[in-house]
């Protein structure tokens, strides 16, 4: 295995014990460093399960998943948690933030479980808090920083940008965004994706973007369709 691929999947199959057919069956998938992949599929197609597998919170699959050269199936649960903290930034559809922490504290939260990202954030911004502030400004939230807005008073679009800053802080190699724009209107949606793409590219990270909305596919290098019936993607996907 080379480390030039952030994500490498080899003959991955996963199914629930009481289901006759495998939920996921991916012969081969690679996301190279700095690349972006659009993962599309209707609900029930196994998107969430794939994200759980990739981020190491779920095991019990056959085949192999590598994140930054580390094969997840060879790692203990604890090491997988550490790997996620160090190398993966996650953005969700909603409830990304702890409402009782300030926006800056929410961003800095990602460095709490990872020494690696803490050190990187300090190199880049001086302190974790300053780096968090810098990222918020870059994502167009200067006003939020200056007026010390409370997290609970932010609009959904602003909250998603704070979540993006948290995913980006400390330069993790992989950003996983799970339907981050489904609560946004189309104008905000496009602006958010452009910002996210730009920041991800600037940090040199790979991006895995999950959505059911096929119209977004044009933003990304490659697209992977997960069909409800699975047995998907015969072709080897290399992004």
């Amino acid at each position, binding site marked *: 295995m080379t480390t030039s691929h952030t994500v490498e999947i080899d003959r991955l199959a996963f199914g629930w014990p009481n289901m006759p057919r495998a939920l996921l069956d991916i012969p081969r998938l690679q996301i190279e460093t700095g690349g972006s992949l659009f993962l599309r599929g209707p609900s029930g197609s196994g998107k*969430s399960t794939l*994200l*759980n597998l990739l*981020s190491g*919170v*779920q095991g019990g699959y056959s085949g192999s998943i590598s994140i930054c050269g580390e094969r997840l199936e060879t790692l203990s*649960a*604890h090491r997988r*948690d*550490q790997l*996620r*903290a*160090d190398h993966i930034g*996650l953005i*969700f*559809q909603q*409830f*990304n*933030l*702890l*409402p*009782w*922490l300030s926006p800056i504290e929410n961003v800095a*939260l*990602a460095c*709490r*479980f*990872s020494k690696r990202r803490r050190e990187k954030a300090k190199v880049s911004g001086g302190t974790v808090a300053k780096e968090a502030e810098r990222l918020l400004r870059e994502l167009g939230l200067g006003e939020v920083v200056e007026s010390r807005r409370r997290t609970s008073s932010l609009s959904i679009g602003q909250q998603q940008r704070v979540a993006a800053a*948290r995913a980006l802080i400390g330069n993790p190699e992989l950003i996983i965004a*799970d339907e981050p724009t489904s609560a946004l209107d189309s104008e905000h949606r496009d602006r958010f994706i452009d910002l996210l793409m730009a920041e991800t590219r600037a940090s040199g990270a790979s991006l895995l973007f999950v959505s059911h909305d096929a119209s977004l596919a044009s933003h990304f290098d490659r697209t992977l369709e997960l069909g409800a019936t699975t047995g998907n993607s015969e072709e080897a996907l290399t992004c």
Partner: protein
Amino acid sequence: MLIDLLWRSLLNRRGTVLLSVLTIGLSVALLTGVEKVRQDMREGFFNTVSGTDLIVGARTGQVELLLYSVFHLGSATNNIRWQSYQRIARDSAVEWAVPLSLGDSHKGFRVVGTSSEFFERYRFGHQHQLQLSSGRTFQGIHEVTLGAEVANRLGYQVGDQLVIAHGLGSTSFSQHKDQPFTVVGILAPSGTPVDQSLLVSLESITAIHVGWRAGVPMPGLSVDANKLAEMELTPKEITAVLLGMKSKTQVFQMQRAINGFSGEPLLAILPGVALQELWQVIGTAEKAMLAISACVVLAGLTGMLGVLLTGLQQRRRELALLRAIGASPLHLLSLVVMEAMLLTAAGIGFGLSLLWFALILAQTGLYETFGLYLTLGWPKELWQILALVFAAGTLVGILPAWQAWRYTLADGLTPRT
């Protein structure tokens, strides 16, 4: 490293959190308070007659003798002859002997005839002596020194006059009306039966019974004060004797000698042994008190469990989020257990300050109402009690923590709420 996160999260939920701290605090205050009362009651009880080596009375059961001589409960069936008392008091091994003569009362409070040495020899608690809060000890006849509660309840002050009733009923018809007593002093509270006693000299007891036969005044036999002063007022009989020995090693020898006394049937008891026997009868109450307060703590902890479990449902997203940024299930489990520990610790702190505050406030009130004398101090074995409560609180936290563990494993990155 999660402790500040936990703190912020708790602040965010301060309403319910405060409520559960309050509940635990109250139950801890109650538990430690009951324990404190129990210990002080026991301490007070066992030290009602500290410093006295032997109590001597007419032959009866040892608990009976203890009850009527020290606690002024019930009455003696027989008395001791004055000659017997003198023989015992003059024994070379005896350091001091204080005679007690019981049988009269004043408005329900017992009158104790004794020598003035009583004030010097009677000890309670850790060798505390009786203290006067005003006036002086009795000297002549018709002088009385009042126990604190007697003075307090009946509103007597130094200089007041009172009449002693013959016998023990509070509504006795036979009053020693012809010989009123003057209050010369009032004792400070001691938490012992002395508080409920009127102390007079043996001579006074003899004097008020001059002219009485078989418990009733004989017509024409009453005497005036001038005549009394010339009379020989040494009593013929007393009720009991408190003895102090020169050396502790002679206590058992003396006890044997008195129990085999040739002049009349006598009984000498060791106060500690008799108190122990009595405590076995009344001591079950303290166990009941302890059991009840333990139940209160259980109720407090159950309340906390409720707060933790309902809180957990609201925090499911918070936990999933922490998991996504790299927290292991163990992190989240420890977060919830830590919360239980923090709440218990805060509850304990609150409970202890409540106890101290209550002690200061209730000290005099409890004494005046119930004769319960509380010292200002923590109960003994406080640390063991608190450690037990803390351990129980932590244990209670394990249930929601286990629930959190299950949530995180089931939810993965996205909570299903």
